[in-house]
């Protein structure tokens, strides 16, 4: 190493000079050497420490030089970008689009999949407990448990894991009145906070004594966000304050630390002891802690260090299968532990979440397409800068340095784009949240340090990629030789690269467009399904009270039904009916005993809905056989029941059920005669086989049925908005203090159609953007090719070629490249189709018609994009062309 040589040389000089001087004073050479050595001290130690110091100096100098060179390059890059503002801005916007889409997608996927809940200590030790349950459509992992299941598992795992149980937060009313704000409230066991490792910032959390199942302790713990929002963050008065949730007065005893908002996606504002939240003895036959129907509790555990996880899961399974725990039919259930991040499974993803993951891939595709365009633009600019680059190469700048300079230029561009992208990502991330998961109330804003870091990393990668390809081209030796020869040569490999870019853009656009068309057609298909309701023409209305009054509430159904004539006179209303419960709002079921034993051996329990006689005609459910209920509410009638087709087939297969008998509640109950069969309509989801159902009369139920009457109104789609207001006014006037609730069947169904609606909207949006970008790419590539070949076209025209021949040739050449891209894209779509298969409805991802439609769209756009430059080529002036040589 030269540094070591320098030190040796310096010391050698010292000794030579000293010895020389001492010899001159009259010493012998040996004496002089010994003296010099003595004066110096330990030579080796000195040499070592000098080497150490010098290598530090050298390292620092290197760093400074590299930094200096970088700074120079950045300054140079900034200057050259400034000189061509139009190209720079186009590139920045293109990249900002690609990066912004990714920032938005990342912000969503990060929260759903990557980040453990904030404020929780050592989340890696936590496990969410799932159980594999048998549903009608197969087995599925489910995160909900009833309390007896939780208790059994907790006892079984004692000493090796600490368990907590809590409810998913629900939106509950804070205070009274129609405009009262809502709070996100969750029931949580007393161990919740300590097991998660959360410490109160004010006050305390509730104790096990305050969380006994038999007693109700009216205390609440609030989140930091809630404390700041509702109490202005006042630390002096928050403890001991009273809040009212769903007509229950509670005392605030503690404030959770900032940042902690529970373990679910939806932030929790208020935590209550279990019984405080669920009621000591609900109006159900069994209290919540003994009731297997109340089975939506989440169970999370913290494994003790070294606990054998798979063995614990087996023991949890054994606990769940024990007799008297959970549902009687849960004997085959399997417990499984998953990450605290619920989306990581083992449960299946919600359809919207699944769509979001595919959109993450789509966002990356959009970025690649944007990068291809940027490469195109940079290539075009590199052509204009050929002279400058040639001069730099001639002046002896190294190729590596030149490439570095050009890459720095594009990285600078993409960093500028990041600024725009992060703003777009913030906005887009918020939009995606509203679109994809409107029910979730997220705790934090979509933009944070992680999104920022991700965007920055992606921007640098994209900038380096987009810059490297043209930079390698520009710095290639062929270019310099081409320069000497003139602009017409050395173009062929450049246009090969451009053609490759077009193929790539066209192929990716085709993939996105195929996705878009598949979703659009799925949405169309799913809306065509006859779900037994006139979805676009129904409104529902009912009332709720903030307080309970059993006498008033008992008479409510009849009073609401008595409003029928006045409701019918509201402008736009075509028909008025009533039901105990609107579709998809909830379920009611009853034990039943038919006059045949086809369902023997199974628990004879069935779902029912109480309806007015005209309900079927109002909502659009077809009556297939028999008749509906007698419309006269005053007459005393023998009990009757109507069944849907699914029920008819299940209980009376291959027979006409009309005239048959069903005993509700007990085998000794009076016979309810089947008087009609109606179409099986939607139960909970369009994706499932509907559940068999009874319909009973609201006026003459054969058993004590759930009869909180809801009003059903049929009206033209465009009248529904105004009509809801009129109904609400009427109800407010009729029932002082009541809060009217109105909705439409379309709103009820919106979450059902949402995955396809979202897929259709977002894939179309991204596909459209991709198409636009690809169109611009095709246009600029063909234009460039034409401008390079003006001479050739001129010669051909001079030789007698007709304009249409030239036009056809240019168009043909352009479209050939696009066609290669289209075919590539179709093959890629075919291969990746299975990624979408589970999200589509009534259409295969490899649907040939879809592929044909997309091919035609893309070729059409390509033809339009290539037409103008082709037309220009056909008008090449032969005289001008020949003169340039």
């Amino acid at each position, binding site marked *: 190493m030269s540094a070591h040589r320098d030190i040796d040389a*310096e010391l050698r000089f010292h000794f*030579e000079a000293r010895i020389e001087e001492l010899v001159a004073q009259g010493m012998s050479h040996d004496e002089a050497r010994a003296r010099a050595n003595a004066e110096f001290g330990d030579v080796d130690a000195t040499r070592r420490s000098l080497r150490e*110091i010098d290598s530090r100096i050298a390292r620092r100098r290197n760093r400074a030089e590299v930094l200096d060179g970088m700074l120079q390059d950045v300054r140079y890059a900034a200057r050259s970008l400034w000189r061509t503002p139009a190209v720079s801005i186009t590139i920045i916007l293109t990249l900002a689009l690609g990066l912004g889409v990714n920032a938005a997608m990342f912000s969503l996927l990060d929260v759903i999949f990557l980040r453990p809940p904030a404020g929780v200590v050592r989340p890696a030790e936590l496990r969410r407990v799932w159980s594999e349950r048998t549903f009608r459509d197969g087995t599925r992992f489910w995160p909900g448990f009833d309390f007896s299941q939780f208790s059994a598992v907790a006892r079984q795992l004692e000493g090796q894991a600490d368990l907590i149980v809590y409810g998913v937060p629900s939106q509950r009313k804070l205070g009274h009145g129609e405009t009262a704000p809502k709070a996100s409230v969750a029931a949580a066991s007393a161990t919740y906070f300590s097991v998660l490792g959360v410490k109160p910032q004010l006050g305390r959390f509730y104790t096990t004594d305050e969380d006994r199942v038999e007693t109700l302790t009216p205390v609440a713990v609030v989140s930091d966000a809630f404390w700041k929002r509702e109490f202005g963050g006042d630390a002096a008065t928050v403890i001991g304050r009273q809040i009212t949730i769903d007509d229950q007065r509670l005392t605030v005893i503690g404030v959770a630390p900032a940042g902690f908002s529970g373990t679910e996606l939806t932030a929790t504002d208020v935590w209550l002891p279990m019984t405080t939240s669920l009621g000591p003895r609900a109006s159900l036959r069994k209290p919540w802690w003994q009731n297997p129907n109340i089975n939506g509790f989440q169970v999370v555990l913290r494994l003790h260090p070294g606990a054998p996880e798979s063995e614990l899961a087996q023991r949890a399974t054994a606990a769940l299968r024990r007799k008297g725990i959970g549902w009687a039919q849960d004997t085959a259930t399997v417990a499984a532990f998953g990450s605290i991040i619920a989306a990581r499974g083992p449960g299946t993803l919600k359809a919207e979440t699944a769509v979001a993951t595919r959109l993450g891939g789509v966002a990356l595709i959009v970025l690649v397409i944007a990068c291809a365009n940027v490469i195109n633009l940079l290539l075009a600019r590199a052509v204009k800068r050929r002279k400058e680059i040639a001069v730099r190469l001639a002046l002896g700048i190294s190729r590596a340095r030149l490439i570095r300079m050009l890459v720095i230029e594009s990285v600078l561009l993409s960093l500028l784009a990041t600024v725009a992208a992060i703003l777009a990502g913030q906005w887009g991330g918020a939009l995606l949240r509203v679109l994809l998961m409107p029910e979730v109330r997220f705790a934090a804003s979509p933009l944070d340090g992680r999104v920022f870091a991700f965007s920055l990393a992606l921007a640098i990668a994209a900038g380096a990629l987009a810059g490297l390809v043209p930079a390698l081209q520009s710095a290639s030796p062929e270019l310099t030789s081409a320069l000497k020869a003139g602009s017409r040569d050395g173009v062929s490999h450049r246009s090969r690269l451009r053609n490759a870019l077009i193929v790539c853009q066209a192929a990716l656009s085709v993939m996105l467009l195929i996705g878009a068309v598949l979703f659009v057609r799925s949405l169309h298909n799913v809306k065509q399904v006859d779900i037994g309701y006139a979805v676009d023409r129904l409104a529902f209305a009912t009332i709720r009270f903030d307080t309970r009054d059993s006498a008033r509430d008992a008479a409510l159904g009849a009073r609401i039904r008595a409003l029928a004539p006045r409701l019918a006179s509201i402008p736009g209303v075509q028909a008025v009916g009533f039901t105990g419960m609107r579709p998809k709002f909830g379920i009611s079921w009853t034990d039943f005993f038919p006059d045949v034993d086809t369902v023997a051996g199974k628990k004879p329990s069935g779902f029912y809905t109480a309806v007015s006689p005209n309900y079927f005609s109002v909502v659009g459910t077809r009556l297939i056989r028999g008749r509906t209920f007698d419309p006269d509410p005053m007459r005393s009638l023998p009990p009757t029941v109507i069944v849907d087709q699914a029920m008819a087939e299940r209980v009376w297969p291959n027979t006409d059920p009309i005239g048959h008998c069903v005993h509700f509640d007990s085998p000794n109950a009076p016979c309810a005669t089947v008087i009609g069969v109606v179409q099986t309509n939607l139960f909970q989801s369009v994706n499932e086989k509907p559940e068999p159902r009874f319909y009973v009369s609201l006026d003459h139920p054969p058993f004590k049925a759930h009869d909180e009457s809801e009003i059903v109104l049929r009206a033209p789609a465009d009248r529904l908005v105004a009509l809801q207001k009129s109904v609400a006014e009427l109800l407010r006037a009729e029932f002082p203090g009541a809060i009217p609730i109105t909705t439409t069947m379309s709103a009820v169904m919106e979450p059902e159609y949402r995955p396809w609606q979202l897929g259709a909207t977002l894939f179309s949006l991204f596909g459209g953007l991709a198409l636009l970008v690809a169109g611009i790419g095709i246009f600029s590539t063909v234009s460039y090719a034409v401008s390079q070949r003006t001479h050739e076209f001129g010669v051909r025209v001079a030789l007698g070629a007709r304009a249409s021949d030239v036009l056809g040739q240019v168009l043909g050449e352009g479209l050939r490249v696009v066609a290669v891209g289209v075919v590539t894209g179709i093959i890629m779509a075919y291969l990746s189709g299975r990624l979408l298969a589970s999200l589509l409805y009534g259409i295969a991802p490899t649907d040939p018609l879809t592929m044909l439609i997309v091919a035609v769209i893309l070729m059409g756009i390509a033809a339009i994009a290539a037409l103008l430059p082709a037309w220009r080529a056909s008008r090449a002036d032969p005289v001008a062309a020949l003169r340039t040589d």
Partner: protein
Amino acid sequence: MTSRELDLLQGTLDVLVLRALSWGTMHGYAVARFIRSGSDGTFKVLDGALYTALHRMEERGWVESEWGTSEKKKRAKFYRLTSAGRRALRAETDTWNDYVAAVARVMTATLEAAT
């Protein structure tokens, strides 16, 4: 070398080297000679320590080095004070003078003043 000498030298070597270089650019051996002749043998500086001090000062940015040719036409490494080095010399000189003055005051103080 006794410990008494060491204590003296550790604190003052830097300022002596800076002082030597304040007369102009010189190589390491010239600095050594300057210190040796200036002190008249009152204290001994190990030449190794001197070179370590020079390199450390270069790291600190007090001196710059350059290879050149000595009076006897040999390749030698020359050192030169930077402006930071000159500032350091001024500061160190002041500190040194204050120290000397303080010691002198104590040494010349009369018993009367102490009572």
